Each structure stands twice: as C-alpha cells, then as structure tokens.
C-alpha cells in the first residue's frame, strides 16, 4: 500500500456525529407525522430520482400526441394519394378505350375509301 493510501485511511477515519444524535433520531421517530404543505408535495416531484420520472412523463405527454397527429396526417395524405392514383388509372383506361374506338372508326373509313 502506498503512502497516499495510508494517508487517505487516516484522512477518512470514521468520525462521530454530535452527542445527542441517537436521541434526535428517536425523537423524530416518536414525532407525529407532519402534514406537508402543497409546495413541499410539489417540490418532492423535482427531487431525484423522481425528477427523472416527471421529466419522462412530461416528454412522453408531449411527444406521443405529436407523433400521433403526425401519423394521422401521413395516413390521410397516403389515402389521398392512393385515391388520386386510382382516379388517374381510371381516366387513362377511359381515354384508352375512346382512342381504340376512334382508331377502329378511322380504320373502317380508310378501308371503305380503298374499296371505292
């Protein structure tokens, strides 16, 4: 063991509290429980480790609704996009069938002209 470690043992020797320490502990045990004021109840929330839980709860109560709203918005946008896509496909099909009909008519007319 080094000199420093020996010196630390000397520097950190057990010390006695004041002479009436035990009596004061017993007096506190015998004392009727004091009702805490509202600000003391509130202050308890800001003492570790409770403060960590309070902070976590506050963050959760802010983050979870925001995430929920964001998710809902995204779902709505996705549904709108899906609907627009279906409408576009339907319109393309309609246009395609019309074109087909026009093409048939043009073909029919050109065959008639050839025969004449």
């Amino acid at each position, binding site marked *: 063991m080094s000199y*420093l*470690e020996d*010196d*630390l*043992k*000397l*520097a*950190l*020797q*057990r*010390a*006695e*509290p*004041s002479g009436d*320490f*035990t009596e*004061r*502990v*017993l007096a*506190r*045990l*015998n004392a009727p429980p004091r009702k805490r004021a509202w600000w003391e109840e509130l202050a308890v929330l800001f*003492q*570790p*480790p409770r403060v960590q839980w309070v902070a976590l709860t506050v963050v959760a109560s802010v983050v979870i609704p925001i995430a929920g709203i964001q998710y809902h918005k995204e779902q709505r946008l996705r549904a709108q996009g899906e609907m627009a896509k279906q409408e576009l496909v339907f319109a393309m099909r309609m246009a395609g069938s019309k074109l087909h009909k026009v093409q048939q008519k043009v073909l029919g007319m050109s065959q008639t002209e050839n025969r004449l």
Partner: protein
Amino acid sequence: MTVSSAEGTAVRVQEDLERSDEGNLPAFAEIVREHQAMVFSLAYYFLRDRGLAEELAQEVFLELHRSLASIQSPAHLVFWLRKVASRRCIDQTRRRLFWPKLRLEDVPEPAARTREADPLLTRALARLVASLPEKPRMVVILRFQEDLDPSEIADVLDMPLSTVKSHLQRSLAMLRDKLARTVGEIAI
C-alpha cells in the same frame, strides 16, 4: 477486534434487530449507536457539511426503522446502511447543484479522531477527496473509510467491478497529482 468479541457483537446486533422489529425502541437506539459513526462519516466526507451529514444520517436511520422487517442479519444491516447512505449522498449532491455552495475552507473538521495524523495533510486530503466527482468520491470513501475491497464496493453501489477499479485508479492518480501541487503550495 478479536473473533469472539466480533461474534458477540454480531449476536447482540441480531438480538437488537429482532427486538427492534417487534417495536422495541431502546433496541433500535442500540443499533443507531452501533452504526452512527459509519453512516455519519460516509455522509460527512462525501458532503463536507456536518449539519447536512447529520440530517442525512438521521434520514437513513429513519428509513432503516421503516425497513427493519427486510433486514436479515447484522452483515445485511451494514450492507443496507452503506448502500442507502451512499445512494442518499449521491442524490443529495445532485439536489445541491441548484443550491448556493459553501466554501470548503469554512467547514469545521470532525471532532473525533482515533489516530494522530498530520492535520494539514489530513485536511488537504479530505478536501481533495470532496472535490472528486460523485461516484469516484463515494468509491474512494468506501475503499479507505470502510476498508471495502472493489468487489464489495461494486455490490454496494450497484456498479460493474471494472468501473469501480477504474474509478479507484483514476481517483488515486488525480489525488496524487493534486496533493503534490497542494503540498507544494503549503511548503511555499
């Protein structure tokens, strides 16, 4: 302490524990007297504030009174007291971050000393220990005040053994360095 007197103390504390659990206050007072120096010193060297250390030590014993049913043996009692005192000290310092700080030079030294030591060096070392960060500080106090080995400290502080060892090594290096400078200043 001889083996037989240690055994005698253990038997007496076990009896006090059983009687305290049945609501016997004089038996509980004996437990407090037996362990008050240990709990108070942990708090005192950690906080370097005698009043606050006494308050914290009292809280630890009040918590003990509420938890007597869960204490299984005298050894468990010592382990429990060290664990609760350490945890409360660390919590107390975190709370004190928002409080005005006392100058360490204003804090009186504890009255009781069992061995003679160089008072300047002792005072400087205790002050340097108090300047360590929270967890390394408690590791150093448990190691040199309570004479616990690193695995026992790891149990008390719920900390990996490797972390305890590294806190000890780094703290000793830091103390050695700071002490060299402080002793240099004292010598000048």
